[in-house]
């Protein structure tokens, strides 16, 4: 052994290639160790990602289903006239509904004791809904009407596992014994789970009605904000970058501007929010909570991102292309617009879409311009009012839901996050597709 060591240390380069010397062994094991560190780091990252997606899906998917009560019955002309002549009209319809439900249960030979209050606790008071169905179109009277009524959020929670008999001991909204009826109705197919379209297309509901809450209006709000961001930040950002990168002299002023653009990219978004509140709402008098203001604030926030990525992709265009254009007598502007800009386009588009995606998920500035703290119950009536009417935006709506007391809103918030993530994934996919497309042209 000592003899061996001497050979390895003294004349390593003369030793056999098939036999690794100490130095090589050390180097190889260091390399192997580093590779293992990398793989461990990667697996931790992947694990976190899986955990994140699993928990989002687990908590958010119930928001997309809705417990509904299906009842079919006929309201005869006499019943209709009688109900309409009463003082408490909706109560009369409520009674018709309860009777119909009784009939359904009898038809299925289900025997269970319950009272009117139980039914109210399970489906609320659908009398008004039923009445307006008939008064809207009186020809519906006398014909078979099928109703799909949404069950209360506690019943929803019971099916999602959020509500149990034990947790209902002190509840005044739903009693543990009511669940016997729920089970019976479920077994007989009167209560079932349906896809909750209202969650995607509907508007926000009041604080006590998580079942009726939908993200639709705030998706529209976000859409109008993104229109503002796209049509302001893309031209301004690209024009600023082209000027800075291609035309501006390199001096202390442009250096100063450059440094500050990088600084702006790092400014916390809430600062842009309070700036927007002060400048756009308090000073310029633009309407509060409007997607227009939100879009302006997010434009300020997105501009540095777009400018930085656009400048990087302009700088990546080889100078030989500029020389070639200038060499055949193109002006500076021709060389930029005919040759440099088309080559930089994939990078610019990618940067813009990434900036938009970032803006889409931004919440903090929206809090300050009043996009939370009210119930966005209405869709805008037209294209122009889409910019100026008070509306919420997806992340602001999710924030609003998350801060409401009813646990039913908790799963709505998670469901909203799923929709938001779908939008972001779509945008990133578009960015990737556009980049591939443009790069493949040659």
């Amino acid at each position: 052994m000592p003899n061996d060591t001497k050979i390895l240390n003294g004349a390593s380069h003369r030793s056999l290639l098939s036999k690794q010397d100490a130095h090589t062994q050390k180097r190889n094991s260091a390399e192997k160790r580093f590779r293992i560190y990398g793989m461990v780091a990667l697996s931790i990252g992947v694990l976190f990602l899986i955990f994140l997606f699993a928990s989002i899906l687990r908590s958010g998917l119930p928001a997309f289903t809705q417990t509904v009560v299906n009842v079919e019955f006929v309201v005869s002309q006499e019943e209709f006239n009688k109900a309409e002549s009463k003082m408490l009209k909706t109560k009369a319809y409520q009674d018709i509904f309860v009777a119909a439900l009784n009939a359904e249960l009898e038809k299925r030979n289900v025997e269970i004791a319950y009272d009117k209050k139980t039914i109210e606790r399970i489906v609320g008071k659908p009398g008004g809904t039923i009445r307006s169905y008939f008064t809207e179109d009186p020809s519906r009277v006398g014909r078979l009407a099928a109703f799909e009524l949404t069950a209360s959020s506690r019943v929803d929670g019971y099916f999602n596992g959020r509500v149990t008999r034990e947790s209902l001991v002190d509840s005044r909204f739903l009693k543990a014994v009511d669940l016997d009826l729920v089970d019976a109705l479920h077994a007989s197919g009167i209560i079932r789970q349906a896809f909750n379209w209202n969650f995607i297309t509907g508007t926000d509901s009041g604080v006590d009605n998580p079942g009726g809450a939908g993200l639709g209006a705030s998706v529209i709000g976000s859409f109008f904000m993104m229109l503002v961001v796209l049509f302001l930040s893309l031209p301004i950002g690209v024009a600023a970058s082209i000027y800075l990168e291609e035309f501006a002299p390199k001096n202390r002023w442009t250096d100063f501007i450059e440094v500050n653009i990088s600084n702006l990219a790092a400014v916390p978004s809430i600062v842009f929010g309070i700036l927007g509140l002060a400048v756009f709402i308090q000073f310029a008098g633009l309407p509060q909570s409007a997607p227009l203001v939100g879009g302006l604030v997010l434009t300020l926030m997105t501009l540095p991102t777009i400018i930085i990525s656009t400048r990087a992709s302009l700088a990546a265009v080889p100078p030989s292309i500029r020389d070639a254009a200038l060499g055949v007598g193109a002006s500076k502007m021709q060389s930029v617009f005919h040759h440099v800009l088309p080559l930089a386009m994939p990078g610019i588009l990618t940067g813009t879409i990434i900036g938009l995606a970032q803006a889409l998920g931004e919440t903090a500035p929206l809090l300050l311009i009043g996009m939370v703290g009210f119930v966005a119950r209405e869709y805008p009536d037209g294209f122009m009012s889409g910019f100026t009417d008070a509306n919420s935006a997806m992340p602001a709506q999710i924030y609003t839901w998350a801060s409401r007391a009813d646990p039913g809103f908790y799963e709505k918030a998670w469901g909203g996050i799923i929709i938001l993530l779908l939008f972001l994934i779509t945008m990133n996919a578009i960015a990737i597709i556009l980049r591939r497309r443009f790069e493949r042209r040659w």
Partner: protein
Amino acid sequence: MREEINVETDVAVNNVKISAKDVQVFYGDNHAIKDVTVEIEDKTVTAFIGPSGCGKSTFLRCINRMNDTIDVCRVVGDIRIDGENIYDPKIDPVQLRAKVGMVFQKPNPFPKSIYDNVAYGPRIHGLARNKAELDEIVERSLRSGAIWDEVKDRLHAPGTGLSGGQQQRLCIARAIATEPNVLLMDEPCSALDPIATAQVEELIDELRRSYSVVIVTHSMQQAARVSQKTAFFHLGSLVEYGETSAIFTNPIDPRTESYITGRIG
């Protein structure tokens, strides 16, 4: 305007295309070109030789004012093409560059089709009134660039898909398409293999019939093969200028001799 100048040219200068007088170039504080005075003849290939960093490319780029694009670069002195001072404030560098074509060291076709590469210059200068005329210009330029036969069947294929030598000839065709008077070539063969180099050199010899060609080269053999006049630059100064045969066989300045025999550079 042009007529007038031509008259002046015929009378005042005898076959001299470019005349530079006391040209100084500064890169910031660095004095890159010192007192260069040279007269370059029409319908002649003039080679600029010299060791790296001697200023030959810098001087070449003064002739079509490509140095304007470098912020810190400053040119002093007088360069005249056909008697007109190209550093006159009234001169538009863009117009100048259409008259003085340039071919660069690395082939740099636009990432467009072969046709569009050649047609770009005529298009922006409005040299063709219609598609037929443009087609004609493209064909003529590609023929002059000695590449027509190789690309005539794939004019709409990307220019970047050609081989290095073909790309460089395409760039020459592109430079010719704007109908320049002078063609500047900045080491046009340094990125090419010997066969492509031979083709380009042959082309340069052809071009001599119609243009005043100025070529910067590192290869003294190339200078000897293609040029009629040679200028030797050293450390920013023009050391010696004369007939190529005289420079290579009987140099006057000892520095030229050292360079040619391989002792400096």
